[in-house]
């Protein structure tokens, strides 16, 4: 072996030497190690989601009823469109990233910078969209009622269209007051009260004879079961809580675990995207400062590129599992 070291490899403190098992440099190999372990982590989460879904297969929420919002189109039920847009954004930012890597191979500094910048913008749009999706999910749209047994009742009209609590709930005089910290005996407070009490929902239901209760159970037509008026009234007497929107304890969409998995998996993925944007920014500034130009190698761009594509890859699976299947 030659003992001559070039200026190039001497500079690479973190290069791991010239020994390249599997024909990949130290840094790239380590990125692959990380990606494999992270992929297994995400597989664990998604498989756990599958476990819970199979456990409650008859009552799991239908995704196209939950994610129906599109910006600037309030009240229009448009499932899939917005999340499809998010998917495109992420795929496109993957494309600009791979173009940046490609330009890096040809040592074209300006092109690398432009493509990396576009990738960062794509990542930011995606994280922003995700935040908006969360906002709608947390806020909820129709509201529902939870029974003593823990199952969820939603309200529909004769055509089976969902009806929001606000459209029929009665207004009753109530003594119930929000316990805030300054009124508590010992720094106690409670979570925000729902807009309506159970009694108000029950009274409102009684005075609207065309309303029906929809249960969580999925019937043979793969729709949620709608009860008859008599059954509806009977079920509603068992109501114990009004549920609006979603949190980690309960949600108005159905199975309690559904919201937990949604928050956890999309949150963990969103955190990956956010980290990716931060790392991309660091690399972007390095490109601009000419760090890799001096090194005559844009391999760093390639490594963060691997991470970024991995984030895109995970989204492809999250998209399928949460929104399609």
């Amino acid at each position, binding site marked *: 072996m030659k003992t001559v070291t070039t200026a190039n490899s001497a500079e690479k403190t973190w290069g791991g030497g010239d020994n390249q098992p599997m*024909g990949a440099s130290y840094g790239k190999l380590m990125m692959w190690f990380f990606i494999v372990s992270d992929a297994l982590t995400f597989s664990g989460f998604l*498989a756990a989601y*599958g476990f819970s879904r199979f456990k409650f297969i008859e009552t799991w929420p239908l995704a*196209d009823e939950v994610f129906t919002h599109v910006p600037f189109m309030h009240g229009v039920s448009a499932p899939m469109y917005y999340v499809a847009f998010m998917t495109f954004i992420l795929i496109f930012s993957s494309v600009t990233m791979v*173009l940046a890597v490609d330009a890096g191979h040809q040592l074209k500094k300006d092109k690398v910078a432009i493509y990396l910048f576009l990738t960062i913008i794509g990542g930011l749009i995606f994280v922003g969209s995700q935040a908006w999706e969360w906002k709608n999910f947390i806020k909820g749209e129709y509201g529902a009622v939870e029974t003593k047994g823990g199952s969820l009742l939603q309200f529909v009209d004769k055509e089976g269209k969902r009806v929001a609590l606000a459209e029929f709930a009665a207004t009753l005089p109530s003594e119930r007051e929000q316990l805030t910290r300054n009124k508590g005996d010992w720094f106690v407070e409670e979570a925000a009260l729902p807009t309506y009490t159970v009694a108000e929902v029950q009274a409102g239901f009684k005075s609207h004879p065309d309303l029906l209760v929809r249960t969580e159970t999925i019937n043979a037509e*793969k729709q949620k079961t709608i009860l008859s008026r008599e059954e509806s009234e009977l079920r509603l007497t068992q109501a114990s809580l009004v549920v609006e929107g979603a949190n980690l304890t309960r949600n108005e969409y159905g199975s309690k675990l559904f919201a937990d998995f949604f928050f956890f998996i999309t949150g963990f993925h969103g955190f990956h995207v956010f980290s990716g944007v931060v790392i991309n920014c660091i690399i972007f500034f390095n490109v601009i400062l000419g760090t890799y130009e001096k090194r005559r190698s844009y391999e760093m761009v390639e490594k963060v590129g691997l991470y970024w594509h991995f984030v895109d890859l995970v989204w492809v699976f999250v998209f399928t599992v949460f929104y399609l*299947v």
Partner: protein
Amino acid sequence: MSHEHVSNTKRIWTVFGYLSVITIVEVFFGILKPEFLHMNSLLGLTLLNWIFIILTLVKAYFIVYAFMHMEGEKATLRNAVILPLIFLVIYLIFILLTEGNYVYEVFKNSTIKWNF
């Protein structure tokens, strides 16, 4: 680096085309849910879900092989990354879904009820 790189721009845009078309097809099926595909199932999974899963795997293939440039890596690296993942993920999914289904049947067929 060891080998000379040529520009792959054409390949990148082709793959972007594939990924876009697949996503559009997925969204199309997701919104329309054709009766035939939605109601008939094969091996415990509806035909529609089979389509979604297969298309997802095709997308994953393109992202890993083209974008992450797996097709340009040595076979040892390819196998070291992909084979353990495929094996472990299939194993994990099989065992968890079987167990989930078992718990479902226990709740359904015995006196234990979660929902009343």
